[in-house]
């Protein structure tokens, strides 16, 4: 056993490790959409600077200390030619004061970490009593920014209450997410918020446990059926912030994504103005759009709602997971199919290709459980004809206004 034979791979491992750490540091500085080290709002920044960074520094220092000691021990006390070495070192059995001292050392290190945790805890649990002025149906309302977030297999619903504002307590009275009061705006996949406002989220689920997470805006919080959990986010800049369901929620867990779009106050007001409107109910004609509406009313409305078209009660919402996204303002959202497909191409044109693929073979885009006639979780294949698909696409693109170009652009992840 000669020395060089062993030290070479050791150095290699060491250099690989160092390389990994350095690259990690640079990779974290990149603009990956879900990067947890790139906070974009007051809450996430506070979380990052008060909890994440300090504890990484402390853990890193301890790691470096132990690493140095370990390598020093190996270097200093290693015996290479031991075959004939029958000698023994002094048989030290321990050193009680020393051992107590490093027990205390770890204890006090952890006390520091504990203090950090206690110091940082209010940042994720406190709420601000803020309010925003919004105009809904011509009436000015002081809105405590709150969005009810509901996880479903495999998409997120966002509900806005302006007139009859809900609170955590009022929803807990109701008890579960299948009997929520009618909201002023119901959307999915993409949550619109005004910038520089702390938005309270009330998170729940209609079926299994999901987890709502926009890394740039805050940590995550689980969406648990029968429970309403408070959470909050805040964005300091206009932009589209990405998220991914992070609690395993069944078959298409990986294809359950969401976005938060932070708008200026004016943009947010415009969005309210347009999305509180019902969808147009087209009169009979021989147009593709009308035929699309007929296909929609005959097929899609057993799960989907378009306000102005079918009844505004949430049809079949009492059955597990059969709720499907409200499509009244489908074209107003730059993402669909649970946040995984873009509604528009980068040039602003309607993304017919993905739309048709989604209608034609949804199971290839996003796996689903289907027991025909009984159970639909995930978008089922409805065996639509090409004609029906063309008609439906034409109909869907008139549901709501096309979003601003910057939103469409920011939705593209490449």
């Amino acid at each position: 056993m000669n020395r060089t034979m062993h030290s070479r791979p050791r150095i290699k491992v060491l250099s690989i490790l160092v390389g990994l750490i350095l690259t990690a540091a640079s990779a974290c500085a990149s603009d990956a959409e879900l990067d947890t080290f790139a906070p974009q709002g007051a809450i996430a920044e506070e979380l990052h600077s008060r909890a994440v960074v300090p504890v990484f520094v402390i853990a890193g220092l301890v790691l470096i200390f132990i690493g140095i000691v370990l390598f020093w021990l190996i270097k200093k006390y290693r015996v290479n030619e031991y075959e004939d070495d029958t000698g023994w070192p002094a048989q030290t059995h321990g050193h009680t004061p020393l051992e107590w001292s490093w027990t205390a050392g770890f204890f006090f290190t952890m006390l520091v970490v504990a203090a950090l945790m206690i110091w940082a805890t209010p940042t994720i649990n406190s709420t601000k009593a803020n309010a925003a002025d919004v105009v809904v149906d011509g009436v000015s309302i002081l809105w405590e920014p709150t969005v009810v977030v509901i996880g479903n297999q495999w998409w997120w619903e966002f509900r806005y209450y302006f007139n009859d504002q809900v609170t955590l307590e009022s929803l807990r009275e109701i008890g579960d997410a299948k009997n929520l009061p009618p909201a002023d705006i119901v959307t999915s996949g993409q949550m619109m918020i005004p910038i520089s406002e702390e938005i309270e989220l009330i998170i729940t689920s209609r079926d299994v446990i999901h987890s709502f997470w926009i890394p740039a805006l805050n940590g995550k919080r689980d969406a648990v059926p029968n429970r309403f959990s408070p959470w909050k986010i805040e964005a300091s800049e206009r932009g589209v912030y990405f998220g991914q369901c992070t609690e395993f929620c069944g078959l298409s867990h990986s294809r359950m994504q969401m976005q938060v779009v932070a708008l200026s106050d004016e943009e947010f007001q415009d969005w309210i103005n347009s999305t509180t409107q019902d969808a147009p109910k087209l009169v009979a004609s021989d147009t593709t759009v009308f035929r699309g509406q007929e296909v929609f009313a005959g097929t899609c409305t057993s799960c989907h709602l378009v306000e102005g078209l079918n009844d505004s009660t949430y049809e079949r919402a009492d059955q597990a997971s059969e709720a499907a996204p409200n499509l009244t303002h489908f074209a107003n959202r730059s993402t669909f199919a649970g946040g995984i497909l873009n509604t528009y191409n980068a040039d602003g044109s309607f993304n017919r290709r993905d739309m048709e693929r989604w209608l034609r073979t949804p199971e290839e885009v996003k796996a689903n459980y289907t027991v025909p006639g009984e159970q639909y979780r995930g978008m089922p294949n409805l065996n639509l004809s090409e004609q029906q698909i063309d008609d439906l696409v034409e109909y869907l693109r008139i549901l709501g206004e096309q979003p601003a170009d910057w939103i469409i652009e920011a939705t593209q992840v490449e």
Partner: protein
Amino acid sequence: MTNKHTDQPTGEVENTATNAAGVGIGTSTAADSTAAADVNATATGSSTTDNDSATDTVSDNSANTTGKDVVERPLGVFTRPEGGRGWRDWLSTVDHKKIGILYGVSAMFFFLVGGVEALLIRLQLAAPNGSVLSADVYNQVYTMHGVTMVFLFIMPLAAAFANYFIPLQIGARDVAFPRLNALSFWIWLSGAIFLNTSWIVGGGGADCGWFCYSPNSGVAFSPSHGVDFYAVGLQILGIASLVSAVNLIVTCLNMRAPGMTLMRMPILTWMLLITQFLLLFALPVITVALFLLMFDRLFGAQFFNPDAGADPLLWQHLFWIFGHPEVYIIILPSFGIISEVIPAFSRKPIFGYQFMVASGIAIGFMGWGVWAHHMFVSGIGPLSVAAFSLSTMFIAVPTGVKVLNWLATMWDGKLRFTVAMKFAVATVAMFTIGGLSGVTHSVAPANTQQTDTYYIVAHFHYVIFGGGVLGMFAGIYYWWPKIWGYLLNERLGNWHFWIMLVGFNLTFGPMHILGLQGMSRRIDTYATGYGFEAWNMVSTVGSFLIAFAVLLFLLNVWKSKRGSPYLQPPGPDPWDARTLEWMIPSPPPVHNFDTIPSVHTRDEWWHRKYAENEQGEVVSVVTAEEAAQTGDAKGVHLPSPSFWPLAVAVGFPLIGYGIIFNLWLALVGGLIVLTSLYSWAMEPADNPDTQHDDHDHLQHDDDNAHTEDHDNQDSQDSASESPDDNKDNKQLTVA
């Protein structure tokens, strides 16, 4: 009691097949009670060691028959098998060493199964939009990877070490209840096979994750039988672990050699004892949860159905009250192993024995108070979160103490970097990384960014693979010569070690980065553009390096075995080690110790070989070869083999299939279990056709380990001893 370790009975040693001849005349002075405390402990004959045959020497009961009076059968129809050769011997063995080997070999098999599942996961994730597996199959594969590695690999591998080495390290001849020990193994194996048959007959594996959160585990959301197999299979495995835990706790507490006080027990035995207590208390909790889940899924109960008002967090609490101690169940045996390996190759005693024991106990206790750190984002309320965050942080204190004590053991030592030592030191290093990343998410606010991302996947693989599996490999290289009588090749072992270490870091190191970049756990694919591509590819390459290293290990086993006849046998104590298992031949004789050693100090074996002079220098007193036992004691009283543990175990999967598919089948399984248990109870303590030498069962080193059933045995024994008991009888031969 005459337990002077130096007066070895000298018999026909010399590597000849002494068993064949009728040399086992009579009364061995060595038959020193203790070991065979099973209610049926009997067994007869002369025990000798077949020194030149490394492995599969089978027990050969060159059965008696000659010159023996027909004795009265106390219970008529039932007889005890006598071992026999080959597979019959393995199926009926109650020898803790053979059961340990059975555990180890089966665990390694499932390591390969779980490893293939891991490779499938890594292939799927190697590139964005992976299409190797469908979402459905991916969910099954990652679930079964976790279940297999935890329940079918690490736990049984730890059980292998526990079975093999607890009796050897405390100076006992077997565990307290040898047949129960066999029962544990067979039930475990039947549960393991049952669980994996869901791939064939259950419509796929479980697809709910190893944590199997409700309500996603309900029939509505997981319609195949996979989760049924999970719920029933883990209950079967739980029976095995519970039985084994009780057995090993009793063994540790009651079967220690004279003078082996608790605070003289080797650290490995200590850590395994703590592990058994954790198992004893943790498994009932998961069993309750699985039982409820089983009723939900198969019999229409509503325990976890939110529509019927259930709180989904109930499952999480039940699961993690089991699940977090489970982490320590996995890691403490490995801590124990490296606490033996590092002192042996540092040529120093463990630094701060008391602190090592106390920190292990502290981890065992504190491990019960941290479960909700798996639920920081589940909405359990800020006060609970803060409390569990604090308890989680402070479990780092005893763990950190252990790390520094290992380092202090190396300090001023003469470090011999054998493969075992390399694995042990790597365990310390990799576990330190895993432990410290654990500290980063003990801070609940920071945890909200990290939980359920690949950062957690990285963390627990550094703990479980880095801290657990690497430590187990240290143990495998360290004790291999003891178990099999030949050394593993150090050169191939070096390749194995370095490729595994590099592969491990390439696989799991990048996952830290992926997690911090926001990659969620349990996703079957990811899109381009999030910065995940490069690191996932690195990780996949690393996973294949690990697989290659495992193949090198298997190659090493094969080559070393093949080369072993041409090498000097390692002898009883190849590493100049410190604990009792090294004072007996390698491989150990079936009766372990010719005479039960009297223990006067910690590291008893080392102190028999060496002393310290007034200057504190170590002086050799006697060589290992001189001090070691020869393993040729005759007439050691040992428990008889039995087929009933296997028969009982066969019934459990049938009950499982029955519960899932057709209750009549469960009835058949239940009848098999009951009949076998009845037969077990009725089985005579001795084979009435054989007699045995003096068992001097009244000479116990302490009056423990012998339940009142022993009285039974005594009476049976006396009944079976005919007055003209002529003592010359049969040999029981020995591997």
